[in-house]
Structures are given as structure tokens and as C-alpha cells.
């Protein structure tokens, strides 16, 4: 048992925190919420120079050969800073999928470009026909037309599609709408004719899009992984994405707690700091319990993932717990910050809005409770 980070991991954490402190101010975060692209290409290339985009890819593909815990450390800092932009989409949803399912040639070509900051990717998975999260409910069709597939249908909540170079699209090549078999992943150039995207207005003001595919022609060799057997890959991607999202969320929750504790020490009412009141102390203690539980279960699942130990249960527990925990932390944060935290210009809403978005990303607590129920034999 060892809860310590290695020296390299500590360095990564410290350098990421200080880099983001200077490069990703809250003013910048707010600007990007209104910005059409939603990220700064200049900052993007600086991040690439630091090796961040290649953090989890093997050196043979131009990465730096880190493991999932390294990625977690980095994402925690990004969550803390509310870093805007397509890092998560590109590295987690795009890069890890290619690493998992791609052919050697696809990995060689694409991963090194991702690591170099030259490509933006995303995953087009969810669709309008389900309100409850179900990554296997695929109606978007891909039909073979001589040597190409024609993709047709609408994907929803596709993050960063508006700036992506490639979309990884899960399409049905066979079977019933909600069947796990007959799903295939396609690597689609985002500029292909027939693709139309439109950004959605979301609570976190992140850039999630509707993406409409109209007879989009994709060559057969762009299949990622095996024909009709994409569900197994989707399951792995969603697990990793959910855990990666947990890391982002605990970074955000930590910022909220830190902010509240320093405010409670300074803010005086009734002639003394509000942090002396037990009601406020207990709010803060509850935030800490929620946060630290989320952090350790995230680390544990990340460690298991990097050791290739089966961890469906731990990942499900992590996302179920952190989704609710971050929400509670944000709610208590507002309670402590009171009126001032209700103001648009305050940092508090940046976090509570993101907590809400992240709660539903890759499955909320209810989704994961169903998975846990299965794991415990119900």
C-alpha cells in the first residue's frame, strides 16, 4: 500500500499547477466560454510543448509513456483551473480510443500528431433518441456502398466537434437499435462533405455539439478496431473517460474547498470569522469527506487500470460517487460563499456549472449504480 506520488508525478503536478495558474486565469476561462472556438491555439501548442498531449501514449508513438495515474494527475490540475479546450476530447476520447482499437499504421500516424498538438479529435457517440445515458443505443447507420461506408444520422453532445480534425463515430453496421453487437467505430475526417455541426448552449458553456451526418462517405480502412464489434471498445473508452472525468472533477472540488476555507477564515459576521461557526465548519468537513473519498477511489481505480487489474466495480463506484460528491461540494460551496458566490463574476459558478455538466458526462450516478448492481450479483 502506498498513497505517495513518485517524484516525477509530484513534479508533473507542481509544474502543471503553476503553468495553469499563469496561463489559464479565470478571466481567460470566462473569455473562452464566450469564444467561438473555446480554446486558445497558442496555449494549445504550449501544452503540446510540455508533452501533455502525449502523456499517456508510448514513446514509440511520439508520447512520453506515462500511465493512467499520470493522466489523472494532469486532469486534476486542469479541472482545478477549469481549463477550456479540447484536451479531454483529443487525448482521452480520441487518442485512447486509437491506442485501444487502432491499427498499427493508424496509431503511428495519428498518435504522434496528437502528441505534437497537431490534431484535435473527438468521439461522436451519444444520440438524441435517449435521454438516459446509454452508449450502446446507436441509431446512426453506416452502410457499405462498394468500398466505402455511408454514415447517416445525428449525434448529440459531441464535445469540441466544431474544432475537431477527426471524429470517431460509433455507427450501427448491423443489428437492433439497442443491441451491443453490430456497432462499428469509424475514424471520420471532420471536414468530409455531409457533416454539419452546431454548438449547443450548455450549463458549463463547454463546446458540445450536435453533429449531423448526411451520406458521409468513409473508406473501409477507416474502421477502428473490428467491424460490428465496437461495443467492447466503447465499454473500455467509457470506463477510461468516466475515470478521467472523475480526476477533472476532484480537481475542481479541491479548488472549491480551498476557496471556501480561506473565505471562511476571513469573512467576519457577528464580530468573528464565519469559519468559527460549527455550522460552517461542518459544511467544510462534509466537503472534505466527499472530496477525499472521491480522490482516493479515483486513484485506486487509476492504479488498477494501469496495472491491468479488473476494475469495473471501482470505476463505477468512482464515477457514481464523484458525480454526486462534486455536486454536493459545489452546493455547499455556494452556501458558504452566499450572495457573493451567486454573482456571475465570482469563481463559484464556474465550478458549480461544470460540476453539473460533468455529473452527466459518460454516465451519472444512476447509470453506474446499475453497473454496480450487476457487479454485486443482482
Amino acid at each position, binding site marked *: 500500500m502506498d498513497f505517495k506520488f513518485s517524484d516525477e508525478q509530484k513534479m508533473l503536478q507542481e509544474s502543471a499547477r503553476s503553468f495553469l495558474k499563469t496561463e489559464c486565469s479565470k478571466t481567460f476561462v470566462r473569455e473562452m466560454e464566450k469564444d467561438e472556438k473555446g480554446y486558445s491555439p497558442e496555449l494549445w501548442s504550449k501544452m503540446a510543448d510540455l508533452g501533455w498531449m502525449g502523456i499517456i501514449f508510448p514513446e514509440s508513438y511520439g508520447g512520453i509513456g506515462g500511465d493512467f495515474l499520470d493522466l489523472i494527475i494532469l486532469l486534476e490540475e486542469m479541472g482545478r483551473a477549469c481549463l477550456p479546450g479540447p484536451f479531454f476530447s483529443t487525448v482521452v476520447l480520441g487518442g485512447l480510443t486509437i491506442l485501444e482499437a487502432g491499427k498499427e499504421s493508424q496509431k503511428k500516424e495519428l498518435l504522434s500528431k496528437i502528441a505534437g498538438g497537431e490534431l484535435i479529435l473527438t468521439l461522436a457517440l451519444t444520440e438524441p433518441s435517449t435521454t438516459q445515458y446509454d452508449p450502446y443505443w446507436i441509431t446512426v447507420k453506416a452502410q457499405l456502398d462498394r468500398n466505402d461506408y455511408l454514415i447517416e444520422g445525428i449525434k448529440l453532445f459531441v464535445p469540441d466537434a466544431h474544432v475537431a480534425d477527426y471524429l470517431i463515430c460509433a455507427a450501427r453496421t448491423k443489428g437492433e437499435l439497442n443491441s451491443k453487437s453490430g456497432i462499428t467505430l469509424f475514424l471520420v475526417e471532420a471536414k468530409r462533405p455531409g457533416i454539419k455541426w452546431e454548438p449547443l448552449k450548455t450549463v458549463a458553456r463547454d463546446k458540445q455539439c450536435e453533429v449531423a451526418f448526411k451520406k458521409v462517405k468513409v473508406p473501409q480502412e477507416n474502421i477502428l478496431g473490428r467491424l460490428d464489434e465496437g461495443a467492447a471498445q466503447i465499454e473500455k473508452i467509457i470506463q477510461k473517460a468516466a475515470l478521467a472525468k472523475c480526476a477533472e472533477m476532484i480537481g475542481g472540488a479541491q479548488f472549491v474547498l480551498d476557496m471556501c476555507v480561506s473565505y471562511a477564515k476571513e469573512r467576519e459576521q457577528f464580530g468573528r470569522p464565519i469559519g468559527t*461557526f460549527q455550522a460552517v465548519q461542518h459544511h467544510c*468537513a462534509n466537503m472534505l469527506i466527499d472530496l477525499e473519498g472521491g480522490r*482516493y477511489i479515483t*486513484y485506486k481505480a487509476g492504479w*488498477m487500470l494501469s496495472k491491468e487489474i479488473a476494475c469495473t466495480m471501482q470505476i463505477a463506484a468512482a464515477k*457514481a460517487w464523484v458525480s454526486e460528491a462534486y455536486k454536493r461540494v459545489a452546493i455547499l460551496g455556494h452556501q458558504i460563499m452566499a450572495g457573493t458566490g451567486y454573482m456571475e463574476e465570482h469563481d463559484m459558478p464556474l465550478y458549480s456549472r461544470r460540476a453539473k455538466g460533468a455529473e452527466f458526462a459518460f454516465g451519472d450516478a444512476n447509470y453506474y449504480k*446499475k453497473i454496480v448492481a450487476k457487479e454485486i450479483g*443482482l
Partner: protein
Amino acid sequence: MDFGYKREEEEFRKRLCAFLDQELTEKIARQNWEDKGVGPEAREFSRKLASNGFLGMSWPKEYGGQGLSPTYDFILLDELGKRWGAHVPLDVGYTMVGHTILRRGSEEMKKEFLPKIVRGEIEFCLGYTEPNAGSDLAAMKMRAIEEGDVFIINGQKTFNTEAHYAEYHWLAARTDFNLNIPKHKGISLFIVDMDSPGITVRPLWTMSGERTNEVFYEDVRVPKNRLVGEKNKGFYYMMEAIDSERNHVFTPCRLMPILNDLIRYAQETEFNGKSLALDPRVQDLLAQAAIELEVAQVFAEHSRWMESNGIPMTYEPEVTKNFVSEMEQRLVNAGMQILGLYSQLEEHSKWVPLKGRIEWYFLHSFMTTIGAGTSEVGRNVIAQRGLGLPRA
């Protein structure tokens, strides 16, 4: 980072499991846990644990231990907990008092008590709480006055749970009566033979049927060599022991058998031709409990890791204690909801499901957020020591 166990630790666990599956009967487990009093079976089990080499792994060799990491004791507690055992039979001595004797006791005291603790032969009961000193423990009034080569002790303790079967009282009493010093600076710790003249033990019966006690002292003479460490330092010793005590007492594994019983019940019970295991409401309740148990375990793993590596703990075991005790109440409540009308049936009643364990736990679980410090005091500790918030 590493969430695994070492090969030797896993081997120890394997041997231990084989032993427990053979030796730990339901009767012993319940004597162990329900505090009706450790009977002859549990005493015998305690000696067997020791003679088979499962007690004392983490204790120094000169006092009969193996000198290894506390991890072994945590493995022992986990495996007992998974089998309704909750703790070692004589746990106040083994998991609480013994560590303070080791840290603060004289060499003579260590030699006298530690080998017996490690052999699973003696038990202590904590003598802290008084009728007017609960959460505000330092307000205790029990008086110990030096006279010649003894302390003469008078006063009353309450909720001293093992007093009716322990050989020794681990007693905190006031030894400095100066009202101008902070009240926690005048308290000392003593080891008192429970059969000393002047001690009266009276039962207090709890709502879950467990026995606890009031203990009265009337001119009880305690030899000076039974003062633990230095005079007037007792409160500090109690506080420095508290983190490790929480790590050893509030083990998430003891909630596993409750959850497993409920899962089995859901799998085996049908209502209106449909398995309870397929009821979304039942699934939701049990999945939530399983998730919380995963979280409870990482809390415990974290604070145990700190203890095992000598990293100073400030609030971490308090978090584990808070979480595990409150989770127990939520889990039991979920269990009661799943059992529905049947949940009200007591053990031995006609129609009782799961031997009445859930009903008993429901009654018992009121204690967990109170005993060893309330959740509210715990949250003060987390806020003040963990987050540096100012005291009022």
C-alpha cells in the same frame, strides 16, 4: 502509488482465512461483537488466534510479537470483520490500550502486560466517560490523590463497556485540582485491577441488548507503579492514541456481511413471482451501499497507510470513523427498506428474515455515530485540524 498487498501479506491472509473458516463460529463472532460479554468460547478463540501466530504480528519481538508492519493487524481485523467478527476478542487491550503502554509505559509495565496482550490472555476496559464528561471528556471529575506509595481514587465512570469481564480498568482520573490550569492538563492514566476493593460495577443495558456498565470507585488504592507514563499527561496519551484506535475499530470490512446478507436475500426472495434482485429500487439501494463501501475502504486504506508508515495523522482516521459509522446507518436503513414489514421482526421471532441481524444492526447503529466521539465532534476535528478553521 500502490494499492496492492505484498506477497507475504497475501500469504498471511490466506493462512488466516483458512483458520477463521475453521474456527470462527457464529457464537464466537457474536460474543465478539455484540458485547454481551466475551465468554469462554471467545476467550479460547483468542488464545488460539495467538498460538497460531495471528496475533502480535506488528508487535515488537521483545514483548512476544513479530516486529512486522501494522498491515498484518489490519488484515486480521478485515478478515474477522468479513465474518461478523468485527474485532479481535480482547480488543481494548490489543487494539487500543496496548499501543499506549508500548509508547508510554515503563519497562516494568511493558513486560508485565504486553506479552499477555499479545498472547490474547487479558482484556482491559476503557474508563474515560463520566456522567458529566462525554464529548467534553477533559471535564472528568474522578479524583486520584497520592498518598504514600498509592493513589486513592474516588468517583464514577459510565458507559465502560467491557467492565464486567475485563481484568483491568484503563482509567483516566484527575490528579491536578488546580482550577487555574486548563482542565486537560490535570489528568493521568492508570491500570487498575478490576478486583480491587472499592470497585463496584453495575450493568447498563443498551437498546440493542448489549451490556455496558457504570463503575464506582470508593477509596480504591492503586499502586504508584500502575500510573501510566507521567502524571498529568494522561489526556495527551489518550489523544495521541485516538487516531490509531479509530483505524483499528472503524473497519469497513465489518459492514460486508450485512451487505452480503442483503444481496443474498434479494437473490433468494420473490415477491409476486418476481425476484427482489430485479427490483430497480432494491438494486439502487444495494448498489449505493456497495459504492459507499468501496469509498469507505479507500478511506481506511489511506489512514492505515499513514499509520503503517509513521506519517503523522491529524484528521484522516476521523474521516474514516465518520464515514464508516454514518455509512453503517445508511446501509442498515437500506436493509430495513428492502425487508419491509419483515424488517421489524426480532431474532427468534416466527418469520424473521436473516436471523434478525438487520433489525439488531438497526438498533445497534445508533451507537456508532456516538461511541468513541460523536460525528459532530468529529466534524469539528476535521474542520479545525484538517482544514485549519479557527476555534470559536
